[in-house]
Each structure stands twice: as C-alpha cells, then as structure tokens.
C-alpha cells in the first residue's frame, strides 16, 4: 500500500515542481475555449443549436484530461532515459503496485488540470446546469484520466526512446481528440465518422462531462459509465501485463 502511495506522491511532487509546464499546459485549452468559443459561437447559435460555449467547454476539459494523462502515462520513457525506471524494476515489490501508484498519480494530476480548466471556463461565460453535478463530473474526469494514463503506460512500455513519443501524439492522440465529438454535435454526423467516434473511448468521456456539466448527453450517462469503466478495466489488465514485461 505504501508503495502505491509513494509512487503516487512522486507524480504529484514532480507536477508541482514544474510550474512552467502547468502554466504551459493550460494555454492550449484556454486558447481553444476563447478562439473556438467566440469564433464559432455566433454561427452555432444562428443554426439554432444554442450556446456554443456551453457545448464546447466539456470537450475542452476532456482534451486537457486526454493530453495530461497520456503524457503522464508515457513518462515511463523519460524514466527509462534518466534511469529511474531501473530503480522501480529491481525493487522487491510487485510491478502491479508500482504501475497502479504511477497511474493513480498521473490521473490525479490530470484531474487537477481538468478542474483548473473548468474554473477558467467560468471566466468566459460557462455556467453549470446544476452545481451539485460537479461531483459526478469530477468522478468521470478521474475515470477518463485513469483510462488514458493506462493507455499511455501501455504504449510507453513498448517504446524504447523519446523519438516515438511525437509519433504517438500525432497519429494516435490527436485523432482520438478530434474524433470524439469534443467540438461538434454527434447528431446528423457522417456515418463513417460516427463509426470512428463510437469506437473512441474519449467520445463517451466527452459525452459524460457534457451530460453532467450542462445536461446534454448523446449516449446517456449510464452507457458512458459502463463503457468507460470496462475499457479502463481492460486497459488495466493490459498495462499490468505490458509493465511486468519491461526490461531495462
């Protein structure tokens, strides 16, 4: 138990020490909210679809969660380069507890980031449907963050160095993000795109945040939860297998 705690704490300490990264990683979501929110807002409401900011903010929170958590999962590559991975690999503790500690830490950091983005969104006019729904929303944030930290861990376990990181970011993470319904409503979407959207776990995360924060849900919250939870569990099994096989 203490092993999980200390590796969780390690991720938090690393995060709190990197002020530049915290501020830097808030820039992108803020830009998306301002540029897209105010840019597309007028067209969106002319089309009779309502307030675009309300629609967009849950998507931008999901984006912040996705990027932060994949990054933290993939930090194993940095640990490999700087040597700390060896420290974890030879330790007389189960690799499962190491993996869980790291991932919970990464997920916590991502949720924190998501909450900050939510806080910022109030400044550009975002309003909650009901304040009490913030609690299930944070619960969903954690589920999304954990899912994608595990995803990052699995990928990083298979990569040897930092070169592969950008490849994964551009060819896997960016499509996940754009094809999740973060920015566009899923009603009347092209059928081929819809197939991809439905296969993308982030879509259910975006939908769940929209359902809790602004009361709009395409798939229903129950479905969102069931799918996110089962994918997370599946990735947990896969990640423990991948992490147990890492060699230095």
């Amino acid at each position: 138990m203490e092993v999980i705690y200390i590796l969780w704490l390690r991720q938090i300490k690393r995060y709190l020490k990197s002020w530049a990264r915290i501020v830097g990683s808030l820039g992108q979501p803020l830009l998306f909210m301002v540029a897209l929110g105010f840019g597309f807002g007028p067209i969106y409401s002319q089309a009779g679809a309502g307030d675009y900011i309300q629609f967009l903010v849950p998507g931008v929170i999901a984006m912040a969660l996705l990027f932060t958590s994949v990054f933290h999962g993939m930090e194993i590559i940095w640990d490999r380069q700087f040597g700390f991975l060896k420290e974890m690999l030879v330790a007389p503790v189960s690799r499962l507890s190491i993996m869980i500690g790291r991932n919970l830490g990464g997920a916590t950091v991502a949720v924190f980031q998501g909450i900050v983005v939510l806080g910022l969104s109030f400044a550009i006019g975002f309003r909650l449907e009901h304040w009490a729904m913030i609690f299930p929303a944070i619960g969903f944030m954690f589920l999304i963050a954990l899912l994608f930290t595990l995803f990052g861990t699995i990928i990083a376990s298979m990569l040897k160095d930092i070169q592969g990181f950008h490849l994964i970011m551009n060819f896997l993470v960016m499509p996940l993000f754009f094809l999740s319904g973060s920015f566009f409503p899923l009603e009347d979407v092209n059928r081929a795109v819809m197939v991809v959207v439905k296969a993308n776990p982030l879509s259910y995360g975006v939908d769940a945040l929209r359902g809790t924060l602004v009361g709009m849900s395409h798939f229903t919250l129950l479905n969102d939860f069931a799918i996110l939870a089962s994918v997370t569990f599946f990735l947990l099994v896969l990640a423990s297998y991948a992490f147990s096989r890492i060699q230095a």
Partner: protein
Amino acid sequence: MIVEAKNLVKKFGEIAAVDGVSFSVVDGEIFALLGPNGAGKTTIIKMLTTVLNPTSGELSVAGYDPTREERQARRSFGIVFQDSSVDEELSAYDNMLIHAVLYHLPKEGRKEKIRQLLEFVELWDKRKKAVKYFSGGMKRRLEIAKGLLHHPQILFLDEPTQGLDPQTRSHIWEYIKKMNQEEKMTVFFTTHYIEEVEKMADRVVVVDKGKVIASGTPAELKSRTGKESLEEAFIEFTGRDIRDEEASSLDRMRQRLRR
C-alpha cells in the same frame, strides 16, 4: 554458492554481448568482475538483477532463478547501477525516501537511517536540493547512499566509485567492507580501479568480449602472469588495444540534446 551462472549467453541481434560465461560466487565473499569496456560486465549484472532476460544459460541468485522467480530474487539483493537510477526532478531526500519505501525499511528508524547515510556521503546539507543540480560526483555519492540504505544478502555494485576522488572511494570501500564483515553480506562488483580489486576482492573473474578469460584470487592471477601488480596482470590477460563502449541511452540523449 550464492550467485551462479552457467553458460550464460545474451545476444542483441546477431552480436553476443555475453557468450557462454560461467562463474560462481561463494556466500559472504567480495567478488570482482573485471574486464575492459564493452566486455559484457553490465549486461551480466543486468541479467543477474532481473532487468534483462538471458538468451540462454542458467542463473541462480540466492537460490532463485532471476528469470522466473524475479520477486524472490529481488528480495535478496541491492544494487548500485553504473549510471543514474534516481529521479533528477526530486530532491536527494525524496529519492532516499522512495527507495526506503520500495525496500520495506521499517517506518521507525527510517528517517534516522536516511540521515546517517546522507551524512556519510556528505550530502545531508544538500538533501532538499533537486538532484538535477548536483555535480557528477554528488550524484554518484547519492546512488551509493541509496544502495546502502538497506542491507541485502548480496550487494551488486556496477562501477560504484567511477569518477570519485581517492578519499571518497576509500571511505566508501571501508563502509562496504564493514557491511561485508559484520553482516556476511556478499559483495559483487565491477570497477576499472584495479587497486580496489587488489585491496578488496577475495576472488576475481576477468571477462573479455563476452567470455571468461581468467579467474582466481588476485594473488593467483599475479603469479600466473608473473607480474608485480594486478593491473599489469589484467593488461597481460586482456591485451593493450583500447575498446569502444556503446553509449548508454542517457549518453545518446545528451548528445541529441546538444545538437
């Protein structure tokens, strides 16, 4: 025999870094694995310490097979790696604390032990500083302090004193010798400082190009070659050409960053 290797082979692609190595280490002795750069020493230590799987051959560490009984094997040893194994973003103290938790040091007395070792390597005053601001020698001392934090049955040291001044080196070796004598801890080390071997090692195995080329006590190796010092005997065994070593991943990255 507390550590044993039989016909150990590790191939990376076509190249055999370790090519049929056999040796054994007696419980409680100080054992030195010598060899020029690229001889396969680090690869052997990595396989003994469960982080790399051999291509073929048999291994035993404290009676366990490190490829199949990793957990039990890991409980028996401690290791100081050749290159960094700390989190450079965190402070020296945090690194020690993480290590203490990973190695199940009892909560009471943990802080005292960390303090004792950080004072021993003269880093206690710098304990709150992030390791990335440390000099090479300070980092090495921290690695050693970390490795000595718990008292394992077997201690692996891969070029532990590389780059340290003679005072610090002899200081550290005294401590290791004391642990070896008082607790019957087996010490398995590699080094390029041959005088350390001459002074400390009970037995030596010399490897070159992935093969064992000599073994025995330092005195035996000297008398076999008819040389005055172990250093001369070592050169006699391994020849005079200078070897290249493959850059470690950290070196590779440093080179990339520099570009």
